[in-house]
């Protein structure tokens, strides 16, 4: 089950090598995103697009907010 985390834990995990993934549409990602995040829109999340992610490192996903 995925673990929900807060901002401070995001910073700590990223500093330790975690991968940050913005799952919003590409246009929104281009407008603004968290530094260091790569974009894999939710609609395109599949075995081909996740090949760029490392299986041995944590992955953090985010979108805009609670909505």
């Amino acid at each position, binding site marked *: 089950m995925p673990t929900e985390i807060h901002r401070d834990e995001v910073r700590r995990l990223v500093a330790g090598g975690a991968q940050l993934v913005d*799952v919003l549409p590409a246009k929104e990602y281009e*407008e603004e995103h968290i530094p260091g995040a790569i974009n894999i829109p*939710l609609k395109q999340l599949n075995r081909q697009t*996740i090949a760029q992610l490392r299986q041995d490192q944590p992955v953090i996903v*985010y979108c805009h*907010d609670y909505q």
Partner: protein
Amino acid sequence: MSPRAAWRLESLGFTRVFDYVAGKADWFASGLPIEGKQARIPRAGDVARRDIPTCRLTDRLGDVLARVQATDVTVCIVVNNNGIVLGRLRTETLDADPTGSVERVMEAGPTTIRPDTVLAAITKRMQERQIDSIVVTTSDGRLVGVLYREDAEHYLDDFQPPTEGGL
């Protein structure tokens, strides 16, 4: 959206998946860096003065007045031990009984904005409402600084939007 993405990643074999549920809205509202086209738009956090005097609820007004007079600002922000904004003192209220406590005369729960508030929009609002300054905090309520309308206006007057493609 992110919860579904997190579960999907687990179904694809990832075992250490985390969901930053509060998302980039939370990140930007706390004053942390932004990348992307919108990053170039001036924000309140770019112009807010950070060197603002602070005080505690139980501080004496006489002590606070001395602290504020050592600066060129007109406010002192009341914070707790975690840096959370509880109130605001304007210099005129500091002329009260110097032995009195901050808590007695402060303006409790002042209006605040976030560091990622678009500067042009908030400046326009401050002009319309004749507001000279506004407190800037993170989404947690932690003090970032104070945005002065005059500083915002000068910044926007000098700001040159980047051209597409550059020169």
